[in-house]
């Protein structure tokens, strides 16, 4: 079979075989190269591969655009019906087909911002600890792993623990304070949420703090400043915008968080009166009522809630990422 190949293809061989001293090697290589030459036509062509790559890239773009438009189109009945007053309507009553998103906006903003404040109290010291005091070593690795674990625990588990462990404690607190002892509500939800978002701002904060050039810190130290003063006056101002970006990103996370919040927020469609009231966020309202929605107005109102959520979280996330990219940190 090989001899036949040579005879058929020998006219196509590109270079004389006499250049090789050893003729058996020459024969052998000639046979092999006959096959090489015969083979070049088959195989995947470059242009079709490039086209496939291009399609995959476009796919991603198209996906995002399609998501946005699907949400808008599905919300149209509600948009047409309520217009911009959807966002300010204070009543969410499926029975009377009145859908106002304001209670959920309040619930979302209240829980998210409260959670943000609580988490920042812990995540900034955490970033400073891991970025400044303990950047290497066993303690550092241990704490970093713990943070990773915190971020990896599923949301429903947080909700479960929040419902069975935290809510009773909050109920006791409420009884002591003389408030209605629901146990669930904005306060509980904010607490659970704050624990969940600590890892996001902490890891970004840690990175930007560790990126502060050491010669700046050494210059300050050599002038006689204490560690505390160096951190306060050199490190934090330098890393400031990065830390804020990390906080923005954890806010984005908090706004979209569903399961844990749904399980401990008390599921009430009225505007919460105080920090211990039950409420609903945009996400928890969708989670609670989507499967029971009857009628296209009800469903499209819920979807419009999703649209609002989509826009808000996207804006905040993009803002946060832009700031981070400007600072040169890989997220």
């Amino acid at each position, binding site marked *: 079979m090989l001899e036949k190949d040579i005879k058929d293809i020998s006219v196509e061989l590109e270079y004389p075989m006499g*250049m090789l001293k050893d003729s058996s090697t020459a024969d*052998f290589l000639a046979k*092999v190269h006959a096959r090489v030459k015969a083979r070049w036509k088959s*195989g995947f062509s470059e242009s079709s591969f490039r086209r496939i790559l291009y399609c995959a890239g476009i796919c991603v773009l198209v996906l995002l655009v399609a998501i946005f438009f699907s949400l808008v189109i599905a919300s149209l009945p509600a948009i047409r019906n309520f217009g911009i007053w959807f966002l300010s309507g204070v009543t969410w009553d499926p029975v009377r087909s009145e859908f106002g998103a304001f209670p959920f906006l309040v619930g979302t903003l209240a829980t998210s911002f409260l959670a943000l404040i609580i988490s920042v109290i812990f995540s900034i010291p955490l970033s400073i600890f891991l970025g400044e005091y303990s950047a290497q070593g066993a303690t550092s690795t241990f704490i970093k792993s713990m943070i990773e674990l915190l971020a990896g625990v599923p949301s429903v588990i947080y909700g479960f623990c929040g419902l069975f462990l935290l809510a009773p404690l909050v109920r006791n607190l409420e009884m002591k304070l003389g408030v209605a002892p629901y146990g669930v509500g904005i306060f509980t939800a904010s607490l659970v949420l704050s624990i969940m978002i600590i890892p996001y701002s902490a890891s970004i904060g840690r990175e930007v703090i560790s990126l502060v050039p050491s010669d700046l810190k050494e210059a300050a130290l050599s002038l006689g400043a204490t560690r505390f003063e160096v951190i306060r006056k050199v490190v934090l101002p330098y890393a400031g915008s990065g830390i804020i970006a990390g906080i923005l990103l954890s806010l984005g996370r908090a706004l979209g968080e569903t399961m844990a919040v749904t399980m401990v927020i008390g599921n009430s469609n009225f505007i919460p009166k105080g920090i211990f009231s039950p409420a609903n966020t945009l996400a928890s309202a969708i989670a609670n009522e989507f499967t029971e929605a009857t009628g296209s107005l009800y469903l499209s109102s819920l979807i419009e809630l999703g649209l609002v959520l989509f826009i808000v979280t996207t804006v905040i996330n993009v803002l946060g990422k832009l700031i981070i990219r400007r600072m040169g940190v890989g997220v």
Partner: protein
Amino acid sequence: MESTVLRIEKFSAFFGENAVLKDINLSISRNKISAIMGPSGCGKTTLIRCINRMHELIPDTRVSGKIFLDNEDIYATDPIIVRRQIGMVFQKPNPFPTMSIYDNVIAGYNLNGIRLAKDEKEKVVEESLRKAALWEEVNGALHRRGTFLSGGQQQRLCIARALAMGPAVLLLDEPTSALDPKATSHIEELIMQLKDTVTIILVTHNIAQAARVSDFTAFLYLGELVEFGPSEKMFTAPKDKKTEEYLSGKFG
């Protein structure tokens, strides 16, 4: 009597509008070592990358003129075929890190989907490693990863890999500039042994290396071929003033 294996006619190469090679005319003799030297930026790397059609992989480049390999216009042939007949070894040794030494040598076949019988494979591997003066050192450890070898050994592995395809011409782009002096002299010895097997074109910025190793030398300056001739004559009595200045170190 020397025959010409590679003929470069009125060849120019461009990066965008910028001409990096201007009207090069060159004939490379078969089974000889031809060195291409010149100061940084003179276009010597671009030249050999045009010979194996790697230059065109960079966006916004073009060429004009012709290059003939054994009387066949390489710009009229599929570049993949050209690259299988003209091998290249790079400045920084680049064995495939996921493959063993054995697989590295026959990578040219494996990656192209050319199936060889087991004994054919073994023959090619042994032949190529012997020609690259690496067989004695790695025989017995052929299935270890290629990245465990020293720099000089890795470079010889890359040479073996290129030789396994049985190319007519082997292009070497400053093959020893990343190696220590001992490895460098091994490679230089190897190059001189290889010229019986394959025609060698060596790009180097090391004048002494060109003098030691090559039969013919081309001197390139700012994209133009200033002088080309037998190395002995060139290094002792260069015709062009620029060549003389370069050789005596007036610029580099």
